[in-house]
C-alpha cells in the first residue's frame, strides 16, 4: 500500500511500513517507546507512542496501520502531558536507586525521564519488595525495576523460542516470572542474555564478575592471562563514542595491559584450532556417513538448548570445545610446565560478547584434568566498565599487538563473531589453496546471505555438501523441527543462539536506540579482508601447536569429555 499522510503539518509518503510509528520515525521524528521492538510482535503496552489525529482522537501509533490521507500530530500539549504522566506512573512503581544501578546511563527509562524533564514523582511505591534472582551465572533479575513492558518475554519466546519468562498474576500484582516462580537457573534458560539486551531498565542485567578480575589482577602471586573473543573488538568502541563496528582490538589490548593483565591473547587463535578439529571431525563423519549433519558447538546457549530441547540430536553436536574452552585449555597446559609458570598461579580470564560463556566455563565436560580451564569469563560490557573504572579513554589509546606465543589468529577466526563465520572458516579450511578467486567464491556461496536461516550447497571433491547456517534459537527450532520431520537434509548446520551471531551477543554493549548488527558484522569482514592469513591451517602458531603441545593432546585439550 502506498499513500500520503500529514504528520505535524508536513506531508509524508509511506509505502510498506507496517504501522504509523514506522512512518513517523522514517520521517525523522523521534517518538519514545518502551515496548516497541521492530523485530518482534507489536505489544502496545507502554502507550508512549500515542499520537493525536485532527479530531483530537488519540491512538497508539505502533498498533495502527498507515492509511492514505491520515492527519496526525506527534507532540501536542495533550500528548506531552500524557507521556509525562505515563513515565511518572512507571517511575512510581520502579525501584529508583539509579546511582547504584548497573544500567545507569544506558537505561531507556532514565533517559526518557531526563528528556521529559521529570523532576518529581507524585506517586508512592506500595509494591512489596521482590527478591533479586542471582541464581544464574549469566544474568541477574531484579523485578523491583521491571516496568512490565514485556520485551524480555517476547525476546525469550519469539527470538529464542524458549518462553522461559512470562507474565504471571494480574493487575497490580502482575509480575514477569518463570514457571512456578523458580529461580532462573532452574528453568530451561540457556543464558543467552537476549532478555538483558532488550530490557529497557536495570531489571535484567549481566551477572558481573568484574570484581573477581580486579582481585586476580591485584594479587602479585597471580599471572592474569586474558583472551579476547572476535566479536568483542567491533563492539567495545561503540561504548566509547566511536562509529558502530569500528575494530578496536589494538586499543583493547593496550587498555588491558595498562589495567594490569599480564598477557593478552586473541581467541581467534583457538577459533583456528576449532576449525582444524571441526573440519577433521566433519570429514570423518562424512566418510563414515555417521552422525550427520554435524552441528557446531561454539555457542554454549545453543549447545544447552539442543541438549535440553532436542536430546535426540546430542550425537550430532560436534565434540569440539568452544574457542573459549580450547584457548583456556591451551593456556593452562602451557603454564602447567613449571618453567613457564615461574612459580606463579595462572588465572585465565576470557572476554566474551556472551553471557552464556559464564555458564559454559562451569561445565565439567570442558574441564581438563578435572580442573576448570577458564577461571573467569567477563563480557565486553564488563570490559567497558573496567576500562571506564580505570579512567582510560579508549579512543586516546594507541593500538598494541597481542602477546606471544598465543597472540595470532587468522581472518577465518575473526569472522567467527558473525553468523556464518564458522562455516565460512570451515569451507576455507577445506579449500585447496588461498587464491583470491577461491576466497571470494566461498564468501559468495550463500554463507553471508542476509537471512536468519541460510541454506546453500557447495561442491567438495565428488560430492555436494548441503549446509544450513542459522542464528536465533527460535529459527534453530524451525530448522530442527524440519530436520526431525525429514523435510530437509543437511551435512553441516551452524547455529548461533543470537540473531546475527556473537556480534549481537547478550554481553555486548547496548547503545540506546541503535541496532549495530550490520555495522559490527561488516567490521569483522573488514578486519578479515585485511588479514594475510585467512585460512586456519596457514596460521604458523597453529602449525607450531600441532607439532608441539597438541601432538598427543589434541583430543584431551580440544574436545569435551562426556564420560563423567
Amino acid at each position: 500500500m502506498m499513500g500520503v499522510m500529514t504528520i505535524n503539518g508536513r506531508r509524508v509518503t509511506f509505502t510498506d511500513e507496517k504501522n504509523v510509528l514506522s512512518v513517523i520515525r522514517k520521517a525523522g521524528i523521534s517518538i519514545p517507546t518502551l515496548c516497541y521492538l521492530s523485530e518482534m510482535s507489536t505489544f502496545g503496552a507502554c502507550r508512549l507512542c500515542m499520537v493525536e489525529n485532527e479530531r483530537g482522537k488519540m491512538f497508539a501509533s505502533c498498533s495502527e496501520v498507515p492509511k492514505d490521507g491520515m492527519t496526525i500530530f506527534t507532540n501536542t500539549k495533550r500528548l506531552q502531558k500524557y507521556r509525562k504522566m505515563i513515565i511518572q506512573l512507571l517511575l512510581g512503581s520502579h525501584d529508583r536507586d539509579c546511582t547504584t544501578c548497573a544500567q545507569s546511563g544506558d537505561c531507556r527509562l532514565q533517559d526518557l525521564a531526563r528528556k521529559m524533564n521529570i523532576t518529581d514523582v507524585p506517586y508512592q511505591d506500595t509494591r512489596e519488595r521482590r527478591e533479586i534472582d542471582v541464581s544464574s551465572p549469566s544474568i541477574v533479575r531484579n523485578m523491583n525495576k521491571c516496568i512490565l513492558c514485556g520485551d524480555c518475554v517476547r525476546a525469550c519466546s519469539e527470538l529464542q523460542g524458549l518462553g522461559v519468562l512470562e507474565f504471571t498474576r494480574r493487575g497490580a500484582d502482575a509480575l514477569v516470572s518463570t514457571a512456578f516462580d523458580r529461580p532462573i537457573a532452574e528453568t530451561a534458560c540457556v543464558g543467552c542474555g537476549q532478555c538483558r539486551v532488550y530490557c529497557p531498565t536495570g531489571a535484567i542485567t549481566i551477572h558481573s564478575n568484574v570484581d573477581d578480575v580486579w582481585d586476580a589482577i591485584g594479587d602479585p602471586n597471580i599471572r592474569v592471562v586474558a583472551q579476547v573473543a572476535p566479536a568483542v573488538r567491533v563492539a567495545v568502541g561503540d561504548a566509547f563514542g566511536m562509529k558502530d563496528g569500528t575494530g578496536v582490538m589494538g586499543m583493547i589490548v593496550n587498555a588491558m595491559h595498562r589495567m594490569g593483565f599480564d598477557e593478552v591473547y586473541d581467541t581467534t587463535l583457538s577459533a583456528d584450532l576449532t576449525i582444524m578439529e571441526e573440519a577433521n571431525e566433519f570429514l570423518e563423519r562424512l566418510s563414515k556417513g555417521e552422525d550427520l549433519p554435524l552441528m557446531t558447538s561454539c555457542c554454549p546457549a545453543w549447545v544447552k538448548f539442543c541438549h535440553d530441547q532436542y536430546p535426540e540430536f546430542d550425537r550430532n553436536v560436534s565434540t569440539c570445545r568452544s574457542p573459549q574452552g580450547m584457548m583456556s585449555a591451551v593456556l593452562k597446559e602451557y603454564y602447567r610446565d613449571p618453567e613457564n609458570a615461574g612459580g606463579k598461579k595462572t588465572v585465565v580470564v576470557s572476554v566474551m560478547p556472551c553471557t552464556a560463556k559464564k555458564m559454559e566455563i562451569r561445565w565439567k565436560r570442558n574441564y581438563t584434568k578435572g580442573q576448570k580451564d577458564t577461571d573467569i569469563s567477563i563480557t565486553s560490557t564488563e570490559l567497558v566498565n573496567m576500562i571506564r573504572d580505570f579512567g582510560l579513554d579508549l579512543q586516546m589509546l594507541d593500538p598494541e599487538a597481542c602477546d606471544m606465543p598465543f597472540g595470532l589468529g587468522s581472518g577465518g577466526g575473526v569472522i567467527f563473531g558473525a553468523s556464518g563465520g564458522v562455516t565460512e572458516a570451515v569451507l576455507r579450511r577445506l579449500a585447496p589453496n588461498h587464491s583470491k578467486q577461491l576466497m571470494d567464491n566461498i564468501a559468495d556461496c550463500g554463507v553471508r546471505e542476509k537471512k536468519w536461516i541460510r541454506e546453500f550447497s557447495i561442491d567438495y571433491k565428488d560430492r555436494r555438501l548441503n549446509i544450513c547456517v542459522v542464528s536465533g534459537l527460535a529459527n534453530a527450532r524451525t530448522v530442527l523441527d524440519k530436520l526431525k520431520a525429514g523435510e530437509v537434509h543437511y551435512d553441516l548446520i551452524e547455529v548461533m543462539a543470537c540473531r546475527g551471531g556473537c556480534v549481537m551477543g547478550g554481553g555486548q554493549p547496548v547503545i540506546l536506540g541503535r541496532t549495530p548488527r550490520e555495522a559490527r558484522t561488516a567490521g569483522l569482514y573488514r578486519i578479515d579482508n585485511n588479514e594475510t592469513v585467512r585460512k586456519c591451517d596457514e596460521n604458523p602458531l597453529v602449525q607450531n601447536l600441532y607439532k608441539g603441545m597438541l601432538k598427543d593432546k589434541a583430543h584431551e585439550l580440544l574436545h569435551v569429555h562426556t564420560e563423567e
Partner: protein
Amino acid sequence: MLERSCYDLADRCIEKHGKKPASLIPVMEDIQDELRYLPGELLSYVAKQIGVTEADAYGVATFYENFSFEPKGKYEIKCCDGTACHVKKGIAVIEALQKELGLSKDKHTTDDMQFTLETVSCLGACGLAPTMMVNGKVHPRMTPDTAVALVRELRGDNT
C-alpha cells in the same frame, strides 16, 4: 509425585478438548473440578502435552483467581464481598467464619482439610445479599450467626 490416576485424568481431559494450546483453560477447569484444585505438577504435564510452555501455563493459572495450586477443603465456602454484600455487612459474616474456623486473610484452609474459606467479588445474587456459596450452593441473606450455624451443621457439631 502425584498418583498415576491424576495423570490419567489429565489425559482424559486433554483427549476431550483436543491436544492443542487452546485447550489449556478447559483442561485446567476440568482437572480442578475433579480434584478441587490444580496440582502444579499436573499443570506442567498438561502444558507439555498440549504444546504450551510451562511458564505460559503458569501465567494463565495465576491470572485467574479461580485456579488454585493449593488443595481445597471438603467444603469450599465462597463469601461474597461484592458491592451489595459489602453494604449489607458481608464483612461481618466473613470475620465470624474466620474466627469460627481459625482462618485468616492468608490462611484459607483448615488443617483438617474440611473447610476452605475464600472471599469473592460477586456471586451474581446481589438481591440476596449478603450471600455465601458452599460447594456451589448459594445461601442467601447470611448473618454472622446463621453462617456459623451452617458451618457447625456441616461439621456435624451437635451444639
